[in-house]
């Protein structure tokens, strides 16, 4: 039995245990321990992450259509699996304590929750292990259904959003299937290697079709423009830590598949050759621009949200753009940045979702207009959120800065000012939006109804703090993660980034050990300067200059709603919901079509049609 077999076996056992024991008091902890075991199994393969091992095969395989279906791990899979299992571990830990009890008391099924979470991890591992295009597709479908399951758990509205997701996912799967069939027709095999060999000889028109089909197939999962609508609402409605898990890693599967098929097999150099007629652009530029708009538009949608979870979920969509951008640029800096951003983003996004869930757990709301001043009540959660938002905004000293720095630097090296500008506009929007997030929840006036609020229970705080440590340490010593991304770069055939423990070794490089140390010492001196002054006296929050007025607690003296009026005054009219509009247009078109065909099929629902089509296509391919 290879290490990969062990990993998949433990993962499958986790699903079983979660479904059997999920409702028990210790069930959650059992599952959490099993995740830790998965992590241990993954560490047995850690050679993959340091380029000492190239591939770990699974001994399990089936023969279909004279094709050998293979499962194996390489550096890329290992890197993504690490994040997946980490996200699973911390989410399940978070869910095992008080949160789970509350969830069960409110009528939720913990068994289903843990089961769905474990199933997600398992299916993702299967997808990550895929060794050829067919297994990739199978893994892809499994992951889609597993995500649907966890999204739909909350019922009601969440079910609607999950349905919306699954409709998108079907459309994506159809595109993907089309792409795979095209490959089969061209190459005559689902093997990775034969596609890689055939790609350079493919005709430009075929390649175009292929890239469009595959990118939209994978793009749906990544929620890149114009497929971004489903994600934020669906993630925001997922119960508690489930949202943290999905937000951290789930849509990265699209990125993984994109890297495998488009970057590794077809190759970015091939994309550069594909000129778009009548423009200066080629396919690479097109993808980069899609990435940049995926950064900008969702980030500025996030800026308008007043629900903490939705705000975070929209940022999740936006951050995908950075990863895609870095990977599409595909030089040593960019791809390292894009890959590192997957890790960094997962670490702080999971943490931020956890903080918000903890706040909901204590106060019952995530509405940014109904919170405030919780800093004194939940200081540890505040600390976690502070570290998280510094990461999300990409400021030093957190890890988010390093990955964004790599991406910026790659754009400078690449000489693409407009892409750079787009990336920075996204970052600035993020800063505005995350300040609003932390200000409206933790700063400002503490409301009367929240006076008795306490810090979240330890079962919630410990995973948050652990993630906070990861965010800080990998920002201090980015070399830890850059080791892994270098291994990935080597395995997918991109130039490897020269790095050291503190960052990038190049002319005009970056050394985070120095930067962070100097920053910390600077804070130390800042403290000295601060304590030069006299002893300070803490005053009550209502002892506040209000133009000579006496405030009482009944006065809501907290500035939260419409936080950026000046900005919105200018850019408000630019929000036109044109994508929503487009989506509605497509839906009604499909609706009309299906109504017309109703007599024929006696069924009006477009997704059932799509389902039937998929099943048909699958059976045709496999049998």
């Amino acid at each position: 039995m290879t290490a990969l077999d062990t990993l998949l076996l433990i993962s499958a056992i986790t699903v079983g245990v979660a479904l059997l024991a999920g409702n028990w008091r210790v069930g959650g902890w059992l599952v959490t321990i099993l995740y830790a075991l998965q992590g241990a199994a993954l560490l047995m393969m850690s050679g993959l992450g340091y380029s000492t091992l190239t591939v770990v095969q699974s001994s399990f395989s089936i023969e279909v259509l004279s094709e050998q279906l293979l499962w194996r791990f390489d550096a890329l899979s290992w890197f993504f699996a690490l994040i997946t299992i980490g996200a699973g571990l911390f989410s399940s830990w978070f869910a095992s304590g008080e949160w789970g009890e509350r969830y069960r008391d409110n009528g939720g099924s913990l068994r289903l929750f843990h089961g769905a979470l474990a199933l997600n991890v398992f299916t993702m591992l299967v997808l990550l292990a895929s060794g050829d295009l067919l297994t990739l597709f199978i893994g892809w479908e499994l992951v889609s259904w597993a995500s649907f399951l966890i999204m739909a758990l909350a019922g009601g509205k969440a079910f609607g959003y999950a349905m919306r997701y699954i409709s998108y996912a079907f459309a994506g799967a159809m595109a993907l299937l089309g792409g795979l069939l095209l490959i089969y027709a061209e190459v005559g095999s689902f093997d990775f290697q034969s596609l890689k060999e055939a790609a350079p000889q493919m005709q430009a028109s075929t390649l175009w079709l292929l890239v469009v089909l595959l990118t939209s197939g994978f793009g749906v999962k990544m929620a890149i423009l114009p497929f971004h609508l489903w994600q934020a609402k669906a993630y925001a409605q997922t119960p508690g830590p489930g949202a943290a898990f999905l937000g951290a890693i789930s849509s990265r599967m699209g990125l993984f598949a994109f890297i495998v098929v488009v970057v590794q097999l077809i190759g970015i150099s091939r994309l550069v050759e594909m000129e778009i007629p009548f423009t200066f652009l080629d396919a690479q530029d097109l993808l980069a621009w899609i990435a940049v708009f995926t950064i900008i538009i969702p980030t500025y949608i996030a800026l308008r949200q007043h629900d903490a979870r939705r705000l975070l979920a929209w940022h999740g969509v936006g951050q995908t753009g950075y990863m895609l951008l870095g990977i599409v640029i595909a030089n040593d800096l960019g791809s390292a940045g894009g890959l590192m951003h997957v890790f960094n983003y997962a670490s702080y996004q999971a943490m931020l979702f956890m903080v918000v869930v903890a706040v909901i757990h204590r106060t019952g709301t995530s509405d940014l207009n109904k919170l405030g001043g919780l800093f004194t009540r939940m200081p540890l959660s505040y600390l976690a959120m502070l570290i998280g938002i510094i990461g999300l905004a990409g400021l030093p000293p957190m890890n988010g800065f390093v990955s964004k720095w790599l991406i910026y630097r790659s754009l400078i090296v690449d000489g693409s000012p407009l892409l750079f500008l787009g990336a920075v506009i996204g970052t600035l929007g993020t800063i505005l939006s995350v300040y609003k997030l932390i200000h409206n929840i933790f700063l400002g006036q503490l409301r009367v109804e929240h006076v008795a609020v306490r810090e979240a229970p330890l079962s919630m705080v410990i995973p948050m703090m652990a993630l906070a440590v990861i965010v800080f340490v990998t920002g201090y010593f980015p070399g830890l993660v850059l080791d892994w991304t270098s291994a990935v770069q080597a395995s997918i055939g991109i130039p490897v980034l020269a790095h050291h423990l503190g960052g990038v070794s190049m002319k005009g490089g970056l050394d985070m050990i120095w930067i962070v140390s100097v920053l910390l010492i600077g804070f130390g001196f800042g403290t000295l300067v601060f304590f030069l002054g006299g002893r300070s006296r803490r005053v009550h929050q209502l002892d506040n200059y209000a133009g000579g007025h006496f405030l009482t607690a009944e006065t809501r003296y907290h500035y939260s709603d419409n936080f950026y009026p000046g900005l919105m005054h200018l850019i408000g009219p630019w929000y036109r919901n044109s994508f929503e509009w487009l989506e509605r247009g497509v839906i009604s078109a499909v609706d009309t079509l299906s109504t017309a065909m109703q007599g024929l099929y006696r069924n009006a629902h477009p997704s059932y049609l799509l389902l039937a089509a998929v099943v048909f296509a699958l059976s045709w391919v496999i049998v």
Partner: protein
Amino acid sequence: MHFLELLVELLLMPILAFVIGLAMVLMMRRIGARIQRRVGPPVLQPIYDIIKLYSKDTQISHGLMHEIGIIMAVGGYIAAETLLPVPGLDGLADKGGAVTLAYMLMIPALGMALGVGQCANPNGSIGISRALTAMLAYDIPFILVIFGASYVYGTTNLAEMISIQQQQGVSSWGIVQMPLLALTALLILPAIMGKHPFEIYVAPAEIATGPMVEMSGKFMGGLFVMQCFQLYTAGVIFTTLFLGGGVYWITFLPKIFLVVAIPMSVAYLFPRYRTEDVLRLMWKWPMLLGLIGLAVVMK
């Protein structure tokens, strides 16, 4: 020993920055006074102010984050100064270049924003919301400038930029190589320094000095110290990118004072812009100039 030398440099750089910053604050107030036909404050006025603020008997704090915010604001700048190469002192310029510096400079702003948030005063929060919006306004042209300079010099390392300009003489200075970008930077400089006419976020009469509304004593003193650093940083960055930096203080100092003096002399001539007008203005002219400038330098 090399390490000791570096240590001395790192200590010296913030101190120098502070002292020069004090002089800049004085110059700024004097210019303002002269434009209004006043005499202006005495030479040591900035020091009097800071000592007075630190020695207040009552120091009103609104909680831990209020204090940490000020520490971050001052400490962040102290750290950022070590990334700014000045004559004889390179500090950590080779550990992180212009991009790193641009993001390091957001740490003090973030610290101040968090500190103000903890004060629970809506005037403060309104001020921060305006300040962040203004940051969004001027950072977009600013990033074009940073990009253009990095492209022209082929590096993001500030120390290298200086040595390139020093070795090849005035004709290689940024202001000759990319005059449009220099103009862009000059246009956004008052906004970066938060001075007239872009000081809507402090708006004394309307929102009671915005972010500073609850800052008293040493808290305000910290912000005064931060202002010194802020002016100095703005001057040095501009000089490094466009005016050839400096090998000797004697040539370097006039340049940085000139850079700070120019926007200050023009500042009082304009009435204050509203937030959305700041955005509109910044996204129109400097942006346009910056894009044209970039197109020119990149051919």
